[in-house]
């Protein structure tokens, strides 16, 4: 019960006007702090409340597809601009990011390891591509932020992409190590 109340307080705090304005005022804070924070809170909701049990595994895949589509949509420069400019779009973004996190919480754990890796590699490509665009553009790509803020957000995205690459590499190597002849563990254990 206390955890759920804390979760609710965290959600209200993140989207409350003064904190929301503060997070929206910089591209890095908006894209790399507020959005992951809301997605993280959505993921936490998936752990705090009983998760729905789907009859078909493909619904979990659909949940992950929803999450990836949502992340792709809100990483578009025009979407970021509109979320900063139009209040109701900002609210839609908040709700979507929470649902995105929740979708990942109900979808990811039940997917096989190889599918998780495929999504991980896709996410890595998305993060790195966006990072390169934002870090190297000499003209504003997002109309609501300065070129400096854009370059800073791009550089941070590249660092995040690097970290994600190391995580995926580590998981892949762990799988190889555990599936080598003579080892007792199998793929599922590694996953």
């Amino acid at each position: 019960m206390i955890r759920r109340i804390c979760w609710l307080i965290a959600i209200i705090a993140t989207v409350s006007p003064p904190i929301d304005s503060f997070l929206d005022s910089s591209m890095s804070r908006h894209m790399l702090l507020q959005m992951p924070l809301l997605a993280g809170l959505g993921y936490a909701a998936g752990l705090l409340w009983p998760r729905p049990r789907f009859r078909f595994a493909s619904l979990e895949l659909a949940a992950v597809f929803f999450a990836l589509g949502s992340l792709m949509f809100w990483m578009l420069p025009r979407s970021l601009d509109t979320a900063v400019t139009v209040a109701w779009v900002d609210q839609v973004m908040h709700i979507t990011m929470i649902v995105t996190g929740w979708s990942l919480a109900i979808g990811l754990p039940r997917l096989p390891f190889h599918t998780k890796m495929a999504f991980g590699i896709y996410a890595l490509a998305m993060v790195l591509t966006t990072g390169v665009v934002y870090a190297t553009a000499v003209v504003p790509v997002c109309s609501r932020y300065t070129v400096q803020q854009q370059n800073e957000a791009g550089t941070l995205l590249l660092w995040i992409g690097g970290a994600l690459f190391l995580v995926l590499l580590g998981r892949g190597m762990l799988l190889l190590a555990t599936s080598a002849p003579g080892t007792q563990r199998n793929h599922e254990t590694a996953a």
Partner: protein
Amino acid sequence: MVSKLTGRRLTRLTKTLVPPLLILAAWVGVLSWWTSGFSAFTTYSHALRAAGPLPRSAPSFQIRDQFGVLRDTTDFNGKHVLLQFSYLSCGDVCPLSMADFHMAHMSLENRMPDELVLLTVSFDPERDTTARLASMWGHHGQPDGWYLAALTSPLDDRIQADLRRLGFWVSREDDSLFNHSAQAFLIDPEGRVVQVFEGPGNSVRMVSAVEERLL
């Protein structure tokens, strides 16, 4: 027996594939709608697509040039016009765009001002006075046929609407800075936008396009 098994497999396959495919199709639809068919990912490019296909009629603007002369942009009808919008206090993209015009002028000097004019219009008339425009013109070597001008009135809804019809997006920020597109428009002697150059670094393309049209 075989057909029963096949039927079960088909049902299972359908139940497995349909939910993810529906979600995928929904996102493809949303993203396609939002980006005008995967062609406009930024606010700037979306404004340009929303203005419609080329060629399209260019709206007219009341301007005051670096000599203090009041003009209408339609005064240049009968010549090709390379038009860009900027403001002199801009710290990032405007100097790059103006550098493009500087380079274009060096290559097209012999065509100007009889066949072609370059027109840089500021949307910040309060700060970009005639004296300031003349000073910037001097900084670029007083090029003949390059008009540096400012709108005669500050940005209002009517001007914003005209700029949107052109395909240009601009928004005034609280700190008196402007967020804006960085395009140059090639307007033909009939007053139609015939080509758009997106972003700075386009001087070579501008020169080629003008030379092609003036052959």
